[in-house]
């Protein structure tokens, strides 16, 4: 969508679009910022970031701590403004924090370096965060009509893909292919197509998702034998993860701590026998 079309939308509509692109800090952005961002993103819709799993219990156990009310004033805004990946231009103060939640001391937003770091989330997603405070943002500010992009290099197939980003966004989730080596560059693409590199990530290889093709002759197992073995293990069809097990057990007995037991139904209680 172009800027003119975007400007005609309400802030609410823009916010929903930004949500689909999982733009961090969107709730604190002004309408102008949202228009700016959305006018640059590629047509391809990026999958939203993963929601927290439905479990409500930690492996340790639930503790709903009473939120502590403090009177040290300045800490309140610091705690909220330090929400991850919020844009530097922290807009209006949050709607209504009535109690102050101590989230610890404020940490630096940037570390005075030019860096981009790639992490593997799973076979199809790479997470990248960057810091451009080492001088590259200043240096590249003078490039006219330039657009900040991530250049995602598929090192095996030797091609790349460009994704526009906001330099102050600070991080991104990239959809990628499994069992493939990637490198992520960040920099500015100018109108003539020249890419001004700001920083380059370490190479990372996404995991394989599935059985390997390769077989060792000395330890021979045919593919259908192997699948039979896996079915017997019952493992990968149901994707039963270790630390998710606990949530399976507990989910049937979830209750909200701090509320009196009588009259509260256990949510989603389900048990056979």
């Amino acid at each position, binding site marked *: 969508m172009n800027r003119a079309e975007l400007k005609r939308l309400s802030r609410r509509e823009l916010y929903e679009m930004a949500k689909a692109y999982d733009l*961090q800090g969107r709730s604190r952005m002004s309408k102008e910022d949202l228009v700016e961002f959305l006018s640059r993103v590629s047509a391809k819709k990026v999958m939203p970031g993963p929601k927290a*799993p439905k479990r409500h219990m930690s492996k340790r156990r639930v503790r709903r701590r009473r939120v502590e009310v403090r009177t040290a004033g300045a800490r309140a805004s610091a705690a909220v403004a330090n929400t991850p990946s919020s844009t530097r231009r922290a807009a209006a103060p949050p709607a209504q924090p009535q109690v102050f939640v101590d989230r610890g001391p404020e940490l630096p937003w940037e570390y005075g370096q030019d860096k981009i770091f790639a992490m*593997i989330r799973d076979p199809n997603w790479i997470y990248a965060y960057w810091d451009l405070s080492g001088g590259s943002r200043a240096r590249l500010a003078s490039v006219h009509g330039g657009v900040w992009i991530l250049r995602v290099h598929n090192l095996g197939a030797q091609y790349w893909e460009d994704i526009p980003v906001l330099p102050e966004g600070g991080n991104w989730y990239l959809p990628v292919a499994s069992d493939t080596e990637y490198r992520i560059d960040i920099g500015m693409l100018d109108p003539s197509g020249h890419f001004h590199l700001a920083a380059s990530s370490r190479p990372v290889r996404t995991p*394989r998702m599935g059985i390997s093709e390769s077989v060792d002759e000395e330890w021979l197992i045919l593919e259908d034998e192997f699948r039979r073995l896996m079915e*017997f*293990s019952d493992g990968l069809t149901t994707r039963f993860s270790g630390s998710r097990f606990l949530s399976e057990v507990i989910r049937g007995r979830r209750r909200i701590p701090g509320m009196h037991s009588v009259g509260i139904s256990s949510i989603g209680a389900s048990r056979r026998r």
Partner: protein
Amino acid sequence: MSHGYLALVLHAHLPYVRHPEFEDFLEEDWLYEAITETYVPLIDVFDGLMHDGIDFRITMSLTPPLCEMLADDLLRARYLRRLDKLIELADREVHRTRSEPAFHESAVMYLERFRRVRHIYVNVHGGNILTAFKDFQDAGKLEILTCPATHAFLPNLATPQGVRAQLKTAVANYEKHFRRKPKGIWLSECGYFEGIEKYIKEAGIKYFFLDAHGVLYGSPRPKYGVFAPVFCPNGVAAFGRDIESSKQVWSSEEGYPGDYDYREFYRDLGFDGHYDYVRPYLHGDGVRRNVGIKYYRITGDVTLDRKEPYKPGPAREKAAMHAGNFIFNRQHQVAWLHHYLGREPLVISPYDAELYGHWWFEGPDFINLVLRKIACDQDDIETITPGEYLRDHKVNQRIQPAFSSWGDKGYAEVWLNGTNDWVYKHLHHAEERMVTLARRHTEPHAPVRRALNQAARELLLAQSSDWAFIMTTGTVVSYAEKRTRKHIFNFLRLADEIEENHIDRQWLQWLESKNNIFPEVDYRCYAR
């Protein structure tokens, strides 16, 4: 003449939570409950087996933060105070329920149980849980695994030095507590990336564990699936988890802990009891929380207010029945596998230790019965430790395992998503800076050396995967955020002071006494 082997692996871990600055701190409860409900009952089970001359093998990972807390004098003193209060409450409960036979039986059970816990803890093992486990290991029944120093999710670290430091610190800490080198490691959350075996080998460790797909998706295909260990190309062995035996215990649909006769976790005296009566046993803020005395059983698919009173007798019988069922299933599993694979299979069954006793009250009874029945009632399967199996089966296939974890969805998402990805910018910066500092300061003077060691401690504590995990599950998020920020903040300030060669000694001393994990830490583990 056995057809196969079973290796039960209990993973015992708690994040390092120690708050000397508060008289009473809520999150310390995690440790005290685990001691009362899981660790001491398990020790009781193992003591009983040894006393009765029953041969058994079991494996446990005791993570470094847990070991440090179990050995810490302040926490031990606080635990005993907690336990004594609990015994006092249980005693009052016996009197209160005199006229209510349905609950009185349970009240008596709790009093006896807590007194027994106290006796085992204080009299039998001198208030030292670690020595109890160490003794079982020295007797050849228990194999204790180590775990990365602060249970960091290793695939999310930024540098090889960071990985090495987590492993080296863990090994040094293990040697301190158990007077020998660890042979095996339980990687935090089974978080594995290709190449981690290089660092494991450097640390002198012989084997580690993976979730099933870490082995099954390995290359080349593993002939025996997860039912035999595999060697990484560099010779370190990897064991894969068996899903079937895990599911039998964990699954809410099919698993044992959900049985209607077992104790209901969510009807606790702390919530059900008359407020003024339970108030002295709650925390300072007076909020109703679990105290550990629960009178109801699961009963069925019913709301909490329709739960019925717990009956210890039938629950115990159920545990016996389930133990028998578990073994029956293992026998069949092993027989089929033995025939199909042409080799005696090894079934690795890992669980969080806290499942037994804390979440599943009858869990320790179940383990007790499983171990006894395996030893006495049948011949098809034997319990074994992974180290022993490797010793007896030296020929195994070589494969390259695959990136994996036992977290939800099998990879890194639990520790890398919208709720917690912000931490890595800070953690990685601190990690890289620690490496630089460690390399630069080869012969520091005392205050600088102390500051470097404390910086290492703060970094290690910040790297605990627990914080990211808590942010994902949304439980005590502000506590997790606070811990992350505080440790990073402390690190950054220490790093600045080291670089300026101007150490605030008073502040350093205070930090050393507060965040006192790993007194033996050596910052030089970051230098290589």
